[in-house]
């Protein structure tokens, strides 16, 4: 089943091309749309909501064409903008009830769903107080609640972790994960932080300058780069245990990383190698035993998606994270 499909989708503004022949096929679950500032993430969301016409190509949301079925799509989809959008002088309850009615819910259902949804996003007594007095984290929850209140099939969340501290960020990401796992609502979430979506998303789409850089499941991202760190002791027969293991594994056809890491003091070095599967673990174990070395550790290094991404952006991301 396809939730979002685009075909050679382009959006050109007089000066910039925000989206450049983007073709995507996104299924149910949590999908991350990652890109640096100006990559075209928000433009993509506006096109998917049927609010901005594409210059070229086509897009479908829940099987509906965005250019002809905007209202139907907007009835089934929720949207959380990246910017502030909450009036400070009304309470979260009043605001979300109003937004539920704007989505077509009858008055009684709007009130009931508002109470439920605000509880689900973690707002309790404070929901009767004016929004102006809320923390950034609470405001983000209200923004999420108004996107969920009408029980959509899909929510489009534009940078929901923006402005949150690390704890707030983790809570928001956990909440987003639950939107899919517990509520069964598919999610498209944007971020310029590749790393933070790794834990949350089933699938990540990376765009840059409106072009598709990569689209794959998060498990693919990490699986293709599963790295094994192996540390061995030296022995009398092999004063350079690490060197001996490296030579033996290379002879056995294992892909080895060039450098070695400094290990624990007095314990030699750590060898990094690519694990193709279970066999590699067995091979390493047998080789170490065959050489008569002691195995200090063998552990999986789960790479961050950032490392698979362009180094330039990874640096940018680090700068952002600081």
């Amino acid at each position, binding site marked *: 089943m396809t939730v979002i499909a685009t075909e050679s989708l382009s959006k050109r503004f007089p000066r910039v091309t925000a989206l450049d022949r983007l073709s995507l096929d996104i299924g149910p679950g949590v999908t991350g749309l990652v890109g640096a500032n100006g990559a075209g993430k928000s433009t993509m969301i506006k096109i998917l909501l049927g609010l901005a016409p594409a210059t070229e190509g086509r897009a479908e949301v829940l099987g509906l064409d965005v250019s002809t079925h905007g209202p139907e799509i907007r009835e089934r989809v929720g949207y959380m903008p990246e910017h502030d959008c909450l009036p400070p002088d009304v309470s979260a309850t009043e605001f979300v009830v109003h937004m539920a009615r704007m989505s077509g819910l009858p008055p009684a259902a709007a009130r009931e769903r508002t109470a439920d949804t605000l509880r689900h996003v973690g707002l309790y007594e404070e929901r009767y107080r004016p929004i102006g007095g809320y923390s950034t984290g609470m405001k983000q929850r209200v923004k999420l609640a108004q996107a969920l209140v009408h029980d959509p099939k899909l929510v489009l969340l534009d940078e929901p972790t923006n402005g949150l501290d690390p704890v707030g960020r983790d809570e928001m990401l956990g909440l987003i994960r*639950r939107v899919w796992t517990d509520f069964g609502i598919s999610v498209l979430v944007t971020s310029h932080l590749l790393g933070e979506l790794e834990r949350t998303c*089933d699938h990540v789409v990376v765009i840059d300058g409106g072009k598709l850089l990569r689209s794959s499941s998060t498990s693919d991202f990490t699986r293709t780069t599963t790295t094994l760190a192996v540390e061995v002791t030296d022995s009398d027969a092999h004063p350079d245990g690490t060197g001996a293991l490296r030579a033996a594994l290379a002879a056995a056809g294992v892909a080895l990383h060039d450098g070695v890491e400094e290990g624990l003091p007095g314990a030699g070095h750590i060898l990094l190698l690519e694990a193709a599967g279970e066999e590699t673990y067995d091979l390493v174990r047998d080789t170490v035993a065959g050489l008569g070395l002691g195995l200090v550790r063998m552990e999986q290094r789960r790479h961050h998606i950032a490392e698979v991404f362009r180094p330039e952006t990874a640096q940018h991301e680090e700068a952002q994270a600081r």
Partner: protein
Amino acid sequence: MSTPAPEAAPGTSRIHNIGYRSYEGPRLGRAYARRSLYSQSLRGAYGLGRSAKSKVLPMLLAAVMFIPALIMVSISVYLEAKTLFWEYTQYAVFLQLVIAVFLASQAPQSVSRDLRFRTVPLYFSRPIERVDYVLAKYGAMSSALFILTATPLVIMWIGSMLAKMDFAEQARMFGQGLVSVAVLSVLYGGIGLVMAAFTPRRGFGVAAVIGVLTIPYSAVSALQGIAYATDNTGAIVWLGLFSPITLVIGLQNAFLGAPASFPAEAQVGAGAGAVYLAVILALVAACYGILMRRYRKVGL
């Protein structure tokens, strides 16, 4: 085998451990959303559904608007007068400043807030469209003004019956008065919303609305005075085209049985009246068009 999907951050799942219920009920769509926005905005113009503080000014202005009618009616009934001493069509003109203050305070709260706090994109991410938003807001503002201006006329009419005035005549004049304040409400509503929609900053909208209603009126009155003093009575009628309230005054003088209230008792004839009507319709259409344009970019 693929890596299992990452789980929610520990802790959060415990806090929010309430089963999710999906919604299977009706979704009433666009027309319902537009009606809801209309009634919410109309109630909001009188502070209903808003904080206690927001109710003070509109309620006070409504009281100021209604009290003269109550007093007039009481006196008329007491004196068993044959006619009310204010014409139905004059009432809103006499109290135009109260109407202006009401519009200046409520038009910004109706549209500027949504723009200032950037709530508008949330509307347009729903089934509701730009035209629905504009129609609901315009309709609500005009209805609020109509309630403000028509209620005193209703009070007067009831009073006229209690004082046993000529029923047919009073009913006709009351009807003409209602048409007049309906025109005023639609015209003022459009002007107020346009000014407010272009001044999202707090305070500026209030000043802009008051300004656009009173400055042209002062200018027109002054110029009409000069025209009168220089024996240019022909110009008096045409000068009336250049301010909102004199447009209404001219129209009701031409078609709604209102007495001449320009200097020199200059009468607006049917020909000039048609021009007045055309200008009013053009202004209303322009206000609607400008509002539609105003929201074209905001959804994005």
